[in-house]
């Protein structure tokens, strides 16, 4: 075993990269759930975003059209879910599961010609002074632009939900859709928009995986990241900062355990592989268990079918 092979600076630097796909998907799903909709199709939307983004980036030779295409693909797939659950009033759990299976199959189909292809590189942040700092530079200031984009998104979602009137209406719809309807808010329209936002975020998260983190296309490459994102939202008690903390914790431990595996630590690989899941769950359970009886947790209308009675 050789722990000195682990470079703490590199470890911290790769933490942010590793966490970003989950963070993107989770923050999107959080908005969806805040509007009272449970979309279990995150995994399917992520992988569809991953391949669509990859394909468009390769064809166009630039990562930006790819990222845009990934967001569009995720939102498009979520639109199917929105139509089924909000218009045809189908069961959200079953529809979400079907969406995941559909996304996995669809992405495999689209991805056939792209296996083994190398995508165009995406630009990294390069600020003359900050990026050249000895330790902080590589950890904080030399990442891909999308990493900072995801952080900005968390701040934006937090401010939107907390301070804006539209955010208040979105929370109200998730809290009591009947009352929101009685006050004249368009419950279905608001939920459509939230679901599409969640789809776009999941798609971006998938594209981050295939274009930036890995970067290449392999079938089923999201490997459960969408499910982790879903779990994070619950364990984070639907709070944006806890979603960020959970995602970074999960990303950090994933990177650490990979490094430990490489260093030949005398613990079975299986335990190391499961450690990110266990630690993330334990920490978030601890946080949410501290404040008992808080009524601010799950949106009260989460997963319930809304049907206007008149």
């Amino acid at each position, binding site marked *: 075993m050789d722990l000195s092979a682990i470079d703490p600076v590199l470890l911290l630097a790769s933490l942010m990269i590793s966490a970003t796909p989950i963070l993107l998907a989770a923050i999107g799903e959080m908005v969806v759930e805040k509007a009272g909709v449970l979309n279990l199709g995150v995994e399917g939307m992520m992988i569809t975003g991953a391949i669509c983004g990859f394909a468009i980036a390769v064809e166009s030779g630039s990562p930006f059209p790819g990222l845009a295409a990934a967001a569009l693909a995720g939102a498009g797939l979520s639109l199917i879910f929105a139509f089924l659950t909000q218009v045809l009033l189908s069961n959200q759990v079953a529809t979400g599961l079907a969406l995941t299976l559909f996304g996995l199959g669809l992405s495999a189909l689209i991805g056939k010609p792209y296996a083994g292809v190398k995508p165009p590189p995406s630009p990294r942040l390069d600020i003359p002074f900050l990026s050249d700092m000895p330790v902080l530079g590589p950890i904080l200031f030399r990442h891909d632009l999308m990493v900072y984009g995801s952080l900005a998104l968390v701040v934006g979602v937090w401010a939107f939900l907390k301070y804006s*009137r539209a955010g*208040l*209406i979105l*929370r*109200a719809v998730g*809290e*009591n859709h*009947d*009352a*929101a309807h*009685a*006050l*004249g*808010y368009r419950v279905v329209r608001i939920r459509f928009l939230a679901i599409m936002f969640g789809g776009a975020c999941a798609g971006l998260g998938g594209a981050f995986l295939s274009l930036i983190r890995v970067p290449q296309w392999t079938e089923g490459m999201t490997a459960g990241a969408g499910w982790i994102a879903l779990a994070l939202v619950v364990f984070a008690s639907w709070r944006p900062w806890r979603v960020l903390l959970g995602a970074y914790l999960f990303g950090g431990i994933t990177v650490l355990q990979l490094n430990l595996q490489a260093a030949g630590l005398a613990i079975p690989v299986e335990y190391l592989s499961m450690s990110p899941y266990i630690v993330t769950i334990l920490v978030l359970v601890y946080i949410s268990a501290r404040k008992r009886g808080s*009524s*601010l947790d799950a*949106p*009260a209308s989460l997963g319930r079918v809304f049907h206007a009675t*008149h």
Partner: protein
Amino acid sequence: MKGMVTMQGQVTEAPLLAVEELSKAYPGVVANDGVFFSIARGEVHALLGENGAGKSTLVKMIYGLVHPDGGRMLLDGVPYAPQSPSDARRAGVAMVFQHFSLFEALNVAENIALGMEDPPPRGALSQRIREVSAAYGLPLDPERIVGELSAGERQRVEIVRCLLQDPKLLIMDEPTSVLTPQEVEILFTTLRKLRHEGTAILYISHKLDEIIELCDSATILRHGKVVATCNPREHSARELAEMMVGEILIPPRRARRTFGEVVLEVGGLSLPAATQFGTALHDIRLVLRAGEVLGIGGVAGNGQDELLAALSGERTTAPGTIRLGGREIGALGPAARRALGLLAAPEERLGHAAAPDMSLTENAFLTGAVRERLVRHGLIDWSRSRDFACRIIEGFDVRTPGPEVPARALSGGNLQKFVIGREVMQHPEVLVVNQPTWGVDAAAAGAIRQAILDLAGAGAAVIVISQDLDELMEISDSFAALNEGHLSTPRPAEGLSVEEIGLMLGGVHGGTTAGGTGEGAHADP
């Protein structure tokens, strides 16, 4: 009411809102058929009608939630056709909903902002909430989470939300159904103040004595049509009820008043509170004879639910505390007690007395399985169960398309008739009911009371737990009061005065309870 208007010096002859020939049909039912009425500034106008008479549809059209099929509305003499609640709010129409349209996880200020068209910024809004709520005697803390508020405080949130928009017309749908008598007084003071300021109030309530006390005029709806317009002060509660129902209401009469042998004895029944918010029962004693109706009065939360649970067998006690026909049944569960002839109908219709998403047949099976022999070889006998449900529906005039309908789909009054009928049809020796007519319209309440009396007339013993003292006085042979888990010694109900009942209920609660509750329809001597 005209006097009120001229007193204000507002000589506007045109009404504030005029509704003309308004119609709305849903598949299979005409909810409103040529409805007309008008309301002036500073007028409190009552909308009366039984459940399903079309009151809710009418106010939803005025508030822009439902669009009429025909007819028109004039607001200030100008055609008014709101496409959405925000149109209505902009036009000066505000509404307080029957089932509060509040968001429990949000705070007071957020809830109020959601019901306004252009809410001011947070800080200014909080300031305005404090000012307005203090000015109308409805103090509110804008930062409190609504989920922590009492029913009365929640209604304040709704009212203050309306007041902040200076409405010309305030619609109130059953505002007092969840309030304590004291809270009703506060509400009426606020409404009178608003009337004095020239706000028109459209008031929907089942409680006819409230209408007589508060309203200047009334429009009575029956089956979606206007059947009368009147000044409620010139009529008795019974006359108003008869106009609503369209038939003469006969106060329940009982066939005989002779009692048989003692069938139920409760002695030394004590029970600790089941939950943090429950009430403990202390040394409950009572004796019930065949053919006797014992009325148990008291303000909500004094142990009514716990007493029902102890008698029905949901919570068991020492065997000797409850004796049915001499047999110790204190330790038996509900099914065993049912088999022996002690049946119960709890207060909460949806969720306690009936399973909301199950059909009426299934609900009939749930309590009737043993006594009606609905189980054969360990399997459900569906044809007998359906037959039992049909007999209840027929015998108790439950208005429903059929026994396959889920319990949730029935209106409150119809489901209550079903729940009571289900027990009565099983020929109990002893029947215990809690709040048999809560939230039920006058005709259905009368039918339920008559069924209870008929059952007692046929020789069963009945315990009626109710907060409606008028109801208890009407049907009870003896009366006892439940106060903080203590039951007073039952006394003959005949000749008991309101003052005596007040004292039995524990002095302080007495006066308000006697005056504040009551269906009213049958209260007239």
